[in-house]
Structure formats: structure tokens, C-alpha cells
């Protein structure tokens, strides 16, 4: 398993994660990555060939709510937009995107 990440790979990861990293952060995180990945490879010590399909940690299944249940959490437009500092006519203003 490859341990060293190229600068290009870190760039790509940052893009996927929607993050901007400074030069210093790129270098630091890059090297720490390697240490972490090296450590977690110890999982290969353990044989998991007999482990069946993963289920939820609680082992539960089939949890739902019934369609049409009363909505006790509805926000007014005021409440929904209260925490935004970029709104117009009840809509959230976002950075311009191409259609």
C-alpha cells in the first residue's frame, strides 16, 4: 500500500474535501498522513474473511416514520434564514455557479 502522497494527490484530496490548505498545511498534513496510514495498516494483521455483511452498530433494521405525521419542527421563513448573513427576499444568496 502506497504510503507517500504526492503534492498532486494532496491537492486533489483538498479539492474533494472542499478545503483550501496553505503551503505549510499541505506539507505538515502530508507527512502526518503517512504516519497515520502506516499505523492503520496494522488492520491487515487480522483475518476478516469470515466476517459477514456489515449491519448497523445497534443491529436494528426497518426504522421509519409514517407518512403524513404532523410536522412539529416546521420553520417560518424568518427562522430558516435567521442565521444567514447573505439573503435576499427569503432566499439564500450563494456564490455564483454556472447553470
Amino acid at each position, binding site marked *: 500500500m502506497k504510503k507517500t502522497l504526492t503534492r498532486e494527490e494532496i491537492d486533489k484530496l483538498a479539492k*474533494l474535501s472542499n478545503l483550501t490548505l496553505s503551503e505549510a498545511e499541505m506539507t505538515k498534513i502530508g507527512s502526518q498522513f503517512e504516519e497515520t496510514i502506516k499505523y492503520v495498516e496494522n488492520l491487515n494483521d487480522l483475518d476478516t474473511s469470515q466476517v459477514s455483511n456489515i449491519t448497523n452498530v445497534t443491529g436494528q433494521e*426497518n426504522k*421509519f*416514520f409514517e407518512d*403524513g405525521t404532523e410536522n412539529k419542527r*416546521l420553520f417560518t*421563513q424568518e427562522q430558516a434564514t435567521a442565521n444567514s448573513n447573505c439573503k435576499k427576499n427569503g432566499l439564500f*444568496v450563494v456564490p455564483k455557479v*454556472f*447553470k
Partner: protein
Amino acid sequence: MTQSYSPVIGLEIHVELSTKSKMFCQCSAEYFGKEPNSNTCPVCLGLPGALPVPNRVALDWCIKIGKALNCTINVSTKFDRKHYSYPDLPKGYQISQYDEPVAINGSLKVGEKTFGITRVHMEEDTGKLLHVGEDSLVDFNRSGVPLVEIVTEPDFTNSDEVKEFLQELHTIIRYLEVSDADMEKGSMRMEPNISLRVVGDQKSDVRELPNYKVEVKNINSFNFVKKAIDYELTRQAEILDQSKTPEQETRGYDEKTMKTVSQRSKEEAHDYRYFPEPDIPPFVFEQKFIDSIALPELPTAKIDRYVKELKIKEIDARILTKDFELVKYFEKVVELSDLEPQKIANLVINSKLATNVSIEEFISQATKLLSTKKTDMPTLMLAIKKVIAENSDVVTNYKAGKLSSLMFLVGQVMREMKGQAEANLIKDKLVEAISNS
């Protein structure tokens, strides 16, 4: 040398369900026309700490759609997170399904051809991104509405097939009563993936797919389906003629120019980083539960029954069964009257009678109209002659001005005709006969 090409088209269709609640919260799924951001809660707004809980009916309806498309319904199914960043996606991921969808391996026969259905799965809708002047704005009223995604095999070879398929699918969805499936309102959306295969190329296996495909978005009505696909096929052929390969990308259909326009490159396949949704335990269905999800009689079966049992001409059966509301009305009329189904069909198809009246009213009007056509004139004239002869004193009274006498005579003729003539017709003929006598 120009090569010849064979289109390879697959479809991705999204159907917005008409449940009462959204997919993962109790906000109303009816968001159309509401004030912006007035139909949200912590869950569909993607607030910190909010959690999704699935809507049971939405899942049932997804199974219903899968069954109607002859799919295998998976006994185990689960939700997964699909990650990408876009302003209308509040959580930065969409809760969808990846490797264990609700339904797989189905098919739909349209006309003579059968098209493969790869999968049918459940997911949530995004908010709505609007462009107003310089601004990009988002309304989350629609965020979280249940969406069923239907993916077909790349079995389509021309735009007519696609259009017919979509119309049939639209009809089926209406029959299931799970959605309006209205392309203009956005409750049914369609994106074709289009490419061209070079025909007669000895090297390429006819079963191999071309090494690129173009996704076309923003086709907002049935009418544009054919135009958009045909434009795209021509565009791609021109590129291939130059021995180049069309770029793998997403394009948008522009209604005004009637062309497809490049949007963003798809050359780098999205890395959606799917993983099982930890906030929602998986589903395991008992087979008898899956079996219990009832389907109504679907168009194909209905046409068959109309032809074989109701003795309706196939072409008429096809027309009738396209509209589910009409079908319901028609079948009620057939059930409650003893009029001949083909005759009722004729009345409806040829617009001889309106169907926006009550069933009883329709039956009454239909009965009149139909019995009028059945009147045998010689028999009627004989009956009138007989009644005049047997009721000469009543005739005299009528001639003297007693109108009620006429009604009596009409009644007598009706009895003679055993209901096979309509009152107004009888009256007219009687008056004629009496004045001629």
C-alpha cells in the same frame, strides 16, 4: 469516407413522489408555489445535529414502481451517502442508494421492443437553485422531497423510442398513483446518456459500448425530448466524421436555440465517496411483504382485457388507457350501465359526450344518444300507425288542443317500441303522422 453510426442511448429518470411528507422529515412534500424557505425544518435544511428518518410510504411506493417495471425487489436494501458540493445540497451529501438499491433487473415493453431497466432506487431531492440577474439564489422548500431514480439499459437506438418509452412510463406512474409525473412541473425529469457506435467497423464488437457518453440535462418537456436527442446525435456524428471522439461531458439543452450546450466536463468521473448511511439502519423485507404490495392493472394488461373481454378494438383500447383518470371514469360507466363498452368508447374518443359530468349524468345522456341510433324507422312508423288507430278519441282530443293527449300517445308508442325509441323522436313523428292523417 463517411461511416454509419448506431445510436446508443440510456436514460436516467427521476420521479418525484406525491407523498404527504418529505423523504426524511415531516415537512410537506407539496412545495410548489410556497414562499421561499417556508417549508423546511432542521433536517431538510441541513442544520448541525439534524438526523434523517425514512418515510415508510415512500419506500413502499418505490417498491411499487420497481414491481411495475418487472424488477427483482431486493430483500435487503439500505441508504448510502453520495458526496459532492453544490449550493442546493444542504448536507454536502445526498442520501441515496448505491450498491443495494430497492429494485434491479427489470424491463418494460413498449410496442414491439423491450427495454431493460437496470435499477430503481430511492433518494432525496435537492433545493432549487435560481439565477436572478447577477445573483444565484437557493430555496430549500424542495430539499428532501422523495425521489425515485429509474436507470435504463442503453437499449434505445433513436429518439422516437425514447419518447414512446417516456410516455408509457408516465402512464404507468399515473396508474400507480404515486406521482403526477409531470415533466413541465418537474415531477418527472429525464436525462439521456447519448453516444454513437460506429457500424460496420470489423474491429468493434457490436455488444461493446462506445468509449464515451454525453449526458444531456434540462429537457423540460416531452416535446423537447426528440429535438434534444436528434440534435445531439447529429452533433456527435459530425465530430466522429472528423475521426475525433466527442468529449465525455454533461451538456444542457437550450430551448431557445434548440441546441445542446456544454456545461461541465465529465472527463473526471465524480468521486462520490459512497458509504452506508450510518444514521439509518438497513432494511430487510420479508418476501410476503414484498408480495403484498399490490399493483393496479397496468396499461398493457388493461388493453389486453379491453380487447378480449370488453370486445373493444385495440386501437381504441390504446387511446383510452393512456389517461388513468379517463380509465377510471370509463370503467365505472361500464360497471354501472349495461351499455356496450365499444359504444361508450366511441362516444368518449370521438368527443360525442363530455366526461366532466357525474357518472350518472353521463350514463343517462349516453343511453339517450345510443338508443336514438338504434331506432328502426319502419317499426316506429308501424307502431305510431297502430297507436293512432287504437286511440282515435285521444287523437281527436289532441287535435282539439289538449296537449296532454299527445303525451299519452307518446307513452303508448314507447310501450309498443319497448323503449327502443326516444321520446322526442316519437313525439315529432306522431305529430307529423297525425297532421297527415
